[in-house]
């Protein structure tokens, strides 16, 4: 066709019609050619992970969705029992603790040649055939401690002797200057890993089973780094190159759609892995995920649409269970009137926790009268208030009067309550604001912000009251209480209290029984000073197809797929 026909050219009937019919046909064919890539047969189990994992590198991935995938692909020294969360042997066949409770010695199930180990299993191997040796853990954890890796969890290993010094003594390029020999991490031989802590620490085995501490095959990384200096950081994570040691391996990665995993035949305990294939979906919309569950495409959802929770509660396959997580409000302790602990405590006392937990959150969330959630063995922390609404409101008004506010004093200025505009944060804030106004005469302006903007204002302490949450990494009260230590980056309230810091420091050095007692005193101090107001404790929102075995409720909401299988 001539694009610019000469003046006076005679229009043809066929021209326009050909385009009107031909173009759609062409588009249809093009669409099919581009769009059809086929589907694999359905995996034995499909679950929705809620989002595309940010990375498959254990060192840099921090979120819950990433953790779920990483635990499929890699295995650490210990794994957790799916119900009790007790440490079970993983890469380490056994371990023992020295008499002074500072030195852990792990014996790995290493095998050079795939020979059978004592318990009848094959030894631990990487997917490239190399044996998993103690040196792999030393190298992986050295990588984690190196600030250039950019790991948010490296700091957790600072309790290892000399680790803090090693990762904070840097040259101008940001590289550690000290030799790594000074750090208490040692491979005594191929099978024996020795970890020496600064001081006894009860949660070390919990730490060791965090996703961040999963081992990677550092020799592969180093080889790729030498061969591809510009993009080795991405290259070693491609499914084809990725070397793993866990119960599953990556068969295919469709970005933003799903990860197809298959049982890793080289895994030492492959006979125990109940599923041959596993699909990890990255659906961000809980409604779509629920549709696919109802249509039989998905078997397990980790999140359900908030509005449907009341109806799902009637179903046996919806299994909410308490987890270690607290929803709370931070107070900016640098801004009057919130610089006065009495005002903060008054606000914390009158929050309508019952109403929020029951009517707004709605999946069986529990009103929170403390910061540390219940469900921790032997820990009995302090509580805020009496639990009786009228009495607490009276106390709150009295506290305000003492601080010079209220009917006899100055009027309270309007405060801003900021939240990120997701989920039910707005509804919760509305109920809170309404109650503060009614009970204390405090006017609250609601400020919903886009997530990153919101986080930025919280970090830079540009807020009055700010929505927050904390999910525990392991079952220990200190994991919660330490975020309000004055030097903690997660404090974000400006609250610094020498007594509180001292209690935490004493607890860290104390014997187990006394430790919990000191932590409880620290929590009492925290609730008394109230740089925060706990609102409710989270529950998990798992929708699980009946017949799935090995999926047990637990306080960390961690469900290692290694133990999953279908009932026959």
């Amino acid at each position: 066709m001539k694009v610019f026909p000469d003046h006076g050219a005679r229009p043809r009937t066929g021209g326009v019609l050909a385009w009107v019919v031909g173009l759609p046909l062409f588009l249809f064919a093009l669409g099919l050619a581009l769009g059809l890539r086929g589907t694999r047969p359905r995996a034995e189990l499909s679950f929705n992970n809620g989002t595309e994992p940010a990375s498959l590198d254990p060192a840099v991935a921090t979120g819950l969705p990433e953790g779920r995938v990483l635990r499929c692909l890699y295995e650490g020294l210990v794994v957790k029992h799916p119900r009790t969360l007790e440490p079970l042997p993983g890469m380490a066949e056994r371990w023992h603790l020295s008499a002074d409770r500072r030195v852990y010695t792990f014996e790995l199930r290493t095998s050079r040649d795939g020979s059978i180990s004592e318990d009848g299993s094959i030894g631990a191997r990487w997917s490239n055939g190399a044996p998993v040796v103690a040196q792999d853990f030393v190298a992986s954890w050295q990588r984690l401690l190196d600030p250039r890796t950019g790991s948010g969890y490296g700091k957790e290993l600072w309790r290892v002797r000399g680790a803090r010094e090693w990762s904070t003594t840097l040259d101008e390029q940001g590289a550690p200057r000290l030799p790594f020999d000074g750090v208490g991490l040692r491979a005594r031989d191929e099978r024996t890993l020795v970890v020496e802590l600064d001081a006894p620490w009860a949660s070390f085995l919990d730490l060791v089973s965090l996703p961040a501490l999963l081992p990677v095959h550092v020799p592969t990384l180093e080889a790729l780094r030498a061969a591809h200096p510009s993009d080795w950081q991405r290259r070693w994570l491609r499914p084809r190159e990725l070397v793993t040691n866990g119960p599953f391996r990556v068969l295919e990665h469709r970005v933003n759609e799903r990860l197809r995993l298959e049982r890793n035949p080289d895994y030492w305990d492959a006979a125990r892995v109940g599923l041959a294939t596993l699909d990890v979906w990255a659906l961000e919309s809980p409604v779509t995920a629920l549709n696919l569950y109802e249509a039989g495409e998905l078997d397990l959802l980790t999140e359900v649409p908030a509005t449907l929770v009341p109806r799902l509660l009637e179903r046996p396959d919806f299994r909410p269970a308490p987890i270690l997580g607290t929803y709370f409000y931070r107070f900016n302790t640098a801004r009057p009137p919130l610089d006065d602990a009495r005002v903060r405590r008054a606000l914390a006392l009158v929050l309508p926790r019952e109403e929020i937990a029951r009517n707004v959150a709605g999946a069986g969330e529990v009103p929170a009268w403390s910061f540390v959630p219940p469900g921790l063995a032997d820990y009995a922390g302090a509580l805020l208030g009496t639990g009786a609404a009228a009495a607490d409101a009276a106390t709150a008004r009295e506290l305000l009067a003492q601080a010079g506010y209220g009917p006899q004093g100055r009027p309270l200025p309007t405060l801003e309550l900021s939240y990120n505009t997701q989920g039910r944060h707005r509804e919760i804030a509305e109920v809170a604001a309404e109650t503060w106004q009614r009970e204390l005469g405090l006017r609250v302006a609601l400020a919903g912000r886009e997530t990153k903007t919101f986080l930025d204002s919280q970090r830079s302490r540009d807020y009055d009251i700010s929505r927050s949450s904390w999910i525990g990494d392991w079952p220990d009260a200190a994991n919660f209480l330490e975020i309000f230590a004055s030097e903690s980056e997660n404090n974000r309230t400006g609250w610094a209290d020498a007594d509180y810091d001292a209690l935490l420091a004493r607890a860290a050095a104390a014997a187990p029984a006394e430790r919990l007692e000191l932590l409880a005193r620290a929590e009492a101090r925290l609730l008394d000073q109230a740089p925060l107001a706990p609102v409710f404790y989270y529950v998990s929102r798992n929708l699980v197809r009946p017949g799935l075995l090995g999926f047990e409720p637990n306080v960390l909401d961690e469900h290692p797929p290694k133990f999953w299988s279908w009932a026959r």
Partner: protein
Amino acid sequence: MTWFLLRRALAFTLTLWVVVSVSFFLMRAVKGGPFDSERELPPAIELALRAQYHLDWPLWKQYLQYLGPLNLDAHGPTWLGGDGSNCLTGLLAGDFGPSLRYRDLSVSEILGASLPISLALGCLALAWSMPAGLLLGCLSALRRGTRTDGAVRALATLGIAVPNFVLAGLLVLVFAFAWPVLPPAGYGELRHLVLPALALGAPVAAYVARLSRSGLLEALAQEWVRCARAKGLSERAVLLRHALRAGLMPVVAYLGPAAAGILTGSLVIEKIFAIPGTGSHFVNGALNRDYTLAMGVTIVYTALVFGLNVLVDLAQAALDPRIASRERA
């Protein structure tokens, strides 16, 4: 023709440069960064991460690095102080950079995986909605004032007014649950694409029906149509050879930008039907402060809008000789 395309190519380069520059600086001016989260990174780690992605450089240098083609970091050319292992980088070297959120992937890999999917879905949506809209529009114009006309106009108004997520929800309800013939979501086979293509194309069909109806009515009222009829041409010839050609003009003008929007993917439709296309990256890139990914999608979108507009210009020139002669002049 050559001059026309050359001029357009120049305008395209200029437009792209303006879009890239404005979005680059706007995005960095927004509060929050790619590594912010509810769990704070230790300061030394954040510094290391920022250094890894050159976010610690002054903005002008980051901008130059992003544009390319010379690599300004430690791997750049030796005469710039680098080790010479990777001299070329940036847009001008065809490199969109690494994604700041999906650290295992480069922006090119993400676009490479998602763009064909959005294009496929968009093509299918356009493939049914253009002819359907046109057919209905013509029918409506030719039967002006009848019940058919009323029905088509009502349908078109409905198609424009009903938001696509409502329509998508209805389609899922009907075809996936009430009468389960199609999957409610997913991607891979033709059956996965039917419902999203219907939902995505419905508003286009409605607009096309409306525009072609009014275009055709206007054309049919022209003197040259009367002249053609007077010449003794059959009604079919009048319609297909003359009136339709003129009546299509507004449709073509609308289709350019509309097609660009559809081909780059709709966030809503992709979310509802779990289609791993580009639409969600557009929004998530901005929300996650994934600067490079958001830039990459913006560039692709700009290129598509521009490219399709050039196609529209060509089509209009083909339909209307007056435009062609103006272009030549």
